[in-house]
């Protein structure tokens, strides 16, 4: 139905050139002409005249633009690779130029708040499911595009850029979107799996960031590998409970986008979320860490949102709750670890 050479005439769009966006643009540019949207004029100039980003050479197949309309006209398939904090704004910026024939695949591992007009998170007594939007839900809400997908999985941008082997999950309710994603991204070094539970896959990528922060903290405290094994497995349970409460299916959480990504991020100093935890444990405050990080660690926002959401469901999420107190309250990280060690988890696995 969709041949390998489809979209030969059309370019592929990439919106957002953070580290992950750049990595995806590079993967795409191996087979197709890519049009990338960037906000900064200097960056657009650098890409178009020097074929480089911040001095690092990129595939000349990548063309940059500041014009959403141009990108939407030239591309049928567009990858949205912007942080969750800017996601709604960018989607609204593109919305007037998007048509029903477009397909959007996003790679953002965060959540957005959907509050009644004029309210902030502080005003809300409880955060319910309808107050939380995954990125695919943002796209469906803000645009006429229905054929939406997401990318998730253990994809550390630096490793992808270095050409190391990896795999990802393309998830969508539409088989054609999955096939399209696979055709565009699959290469000798990059394996692409399909999954139809888009909410579950998005949530896997989002929720694992919480555990990654905790894992960084354990490492920062020098608590060793046994403790990390404990954290990952308890973290997995918590992730599944939270994910189910938001409407994802168990199968997705134990797949590549869930366990796969969790293990990678919990072990990697390349992960931003892990780094946040690590530096917290070394005594820095959240404010200090945030001012010196180049890109957003999605996990911080996720912890806050999920803590509020889980309160409304009445289910306990001990790791998230304690992390919240460390990040936004005055709980010492050592105390949080102590608390978790004493927490009466009686059953090992109770979700299968």
């Amino acid at each position, binding site marked *: 139905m969709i041949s390998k050479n489809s*979209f030969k005439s059309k370019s592929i769009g990439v919106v957002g050139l953070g580290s992950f966006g750049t990595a995806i643009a590079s993967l795409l540019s191996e087979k197709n002409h890519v049009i990338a949207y960037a906000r900064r004029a200097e960056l657009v100039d650098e890409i178009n005249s020097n074929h480089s980003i911040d001095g690092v050479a990129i595939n000349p197949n990548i063309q940059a633009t500041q014009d959403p309309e141009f990108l939407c006209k030239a591309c049928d398939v567009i990858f949205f690779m912007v942080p969750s904090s800017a996601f709604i704004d960018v989607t609204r910026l593109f919305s007037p130029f998007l048509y*029903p*024939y477009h397909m959007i695949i996003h790679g953002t591992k965060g959540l957005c708040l959907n509050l009644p007009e004029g309210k902030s998170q502080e005003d809300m007594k409880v955060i319910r499911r309808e107050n939380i939007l995954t990125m695919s839900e943002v796209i469906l809400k803000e645009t006429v595009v*229905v054929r939406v997908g997401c990318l998730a999985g253990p994809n550390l941008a630096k490793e992808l850029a270095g050409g190391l082997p990896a795999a990802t999950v393309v998830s969508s309710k539409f088989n054609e979107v999955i096939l399209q994603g696979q055709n565009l991204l699959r290469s000798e070094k990059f394996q692409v799996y399909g999954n139809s539970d888009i909410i579950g896959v998005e949530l896997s990528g989002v929720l694992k960031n919480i555990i990654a922060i905790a894992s960084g903290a354990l490492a920062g405290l020098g608590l060793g590998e046994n403790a990390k094994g404990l954290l990952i497995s308890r973290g997995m349970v918590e992730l599944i409970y939270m994910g189910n409460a938001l409407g994802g299916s168990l199968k997705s959480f134990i797949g590549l986008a869930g366990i796969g990504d969790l293990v990678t991020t919990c072990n990697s100093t390349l992960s931003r979320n892990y780094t946040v935890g690590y530096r917290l444990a070394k005594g820095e405050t959240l404010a200090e860490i945030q001012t010196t990080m180049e890109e957003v660690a999605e996990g911080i926002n996720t912890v806050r949102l999920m803590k509020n959401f889980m309160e409304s469901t009445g289910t306990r999420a001990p790791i998230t709750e304690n992390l919240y107190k460390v990040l936004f309250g005055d709980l010492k990280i050592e105390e949080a670890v102590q608390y978790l060690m004493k927490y009466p988890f009686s059953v090992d696995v109770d979700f299968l």
Partner: protein
Amino acid sequence: MTDDYIKKKYEPILPQKDEWPVMKLSKSRKEFVKKVAEAAKNRILEFTGGKVEVLKEELETTHYREKLRIKQNPWAVDPEDDYDFWNGVKSSLVQLSADNSLTKVQRKKKYIDILDQITLRYAEEIASTFKHTHYKVTRSIVTTGFARLLNAARVKGFKRLFSNQYTLQDKIQIIGETKHLRDLASKGTIIMVPTHFSNLDSILIGWIISVLGLPPFIYGAGLNLFNIEIFAYFMNALGAYKVDRRKKNLVYIETLKTYSSEAIQFGVHSLFFPGGTRSRSGKIESKLKLGLLSTAVEAQRANYQKGINDVSGKIFIVPVTINYHFVLEAPSLIKEHLSITGQERYYQESDEFSTSLKISKFLLKFFTKGSDISVSVGKPMDVLGHYVDQNGNSMDKNGRIIDTRDYFISDGNITVDTQREEEYTNRLGNRIVQEFHIINRVFSSHLVAFTAFQMIKRENKKMDLFNLLRLPEEDLSIPYASFKAECKRVLERIFELRDKGKVHIAPHLRREIDQIITHGLENVGMYHAKRPLLKDKNGNIITEDLNLLYYYHNRLDGYDLEKLF
């Protein structure tokens, strides 16, 4: 949409009956049936992937199930040659599997021949027999006859038999996007999707379609209804095609879907009850049967494939809600609902609509006593659930015009992707449910039933629903003062929802709260032997039938109003 009634008689949009799509269809009935049978056959062959073994198995299953149906659940409407036909299928199948002399190609052809026979028979059985003369008679029975009854009941004195003071439109109020619907019906193809609470709905909708000056719609009616003569007459007159819920085999279901899809492509306006069957619980449908709905999406794509890209090939979905104070079948519906969800006991259905006599009695009651009905016509949508403007253009939520055709495009071309269309159908189903809740109209009777039931529930917090419903009715009594206070609270919330455009209200809800409550108590389930809600001698609120109270309460399910309690 305003809350105001629309009370006027519309001119027909197509005055000449020969221009009616349904007339054209009935004139070419024979060819149409053949076309459907042929298309259905090809569809099934596609399913079997051209494998003879799969086809053989499908045919054998179909035969087996049909024989079982004839034996276990025969109906009066079944054709007399039913048994003989399936016996014939059986002997052909047996012969064919024993015959070793045939080549592979010959065998395949023979199996396809059998399939051909079956789809043709099914298509013939499903096809409507619209007769214009019947239609005219029915329409005049409904309008004149019922108007007579109505006036007989309401106007006093000798003149009453001839009075035209009241017409059916005083009894059955129409609100909503009627003009928009008329505009689009003359441009494209309409699929009306009403909520379904009572067997009366089909007749009611048929009447409304005629009042609005629209040509008749065809719709799938349960074959069981054709067992009752009076209904059979009405149904045939209104262009009903027959849906036999006993037949659940692939061949039948595919033929049925093909029939619907081809009729839509023919340009005939259709009516689907997307809930599939009457709402058992009294709740507005929240899970829709997507089978027939998928034929709308399919037909839309097929029209685009044929290159009909203008409005004449466009399909418009129009949600409609029918609001009652009283549903005749409520007692048996709710019992059935509870026995299914509670799985407590097997419930033998004894439907109030089971005989012509019962239904006539009901109609008499209905037209001679109070209890109004209102019908809300929602905003027309395209098959993706986008609102459309007066000219049939789809719009996004910012009012930008978009082309529905683009949703079927991949790589620059219209493509057939059944998985995609399945998702679109899901989406359309969700949009229809959303619209139902928005255009639904709250009546005083819904308010009092909801409030009373929630108060009883709050008093018995620890009980689950089934224990709650088993409470002895005589022990339940709500003091009027607190009932009034709670009704007021719920009503305020309903007004808030209304102001946000999330629901509609009947004008009688703008009265004083005491009047509203009185009105509600008088009307809620008014003809039931056991009333769901009453005021006793001391002025307290009591119930005679908790199940019924629960049923009428359910109408306001889905608005989060229970959070007030």
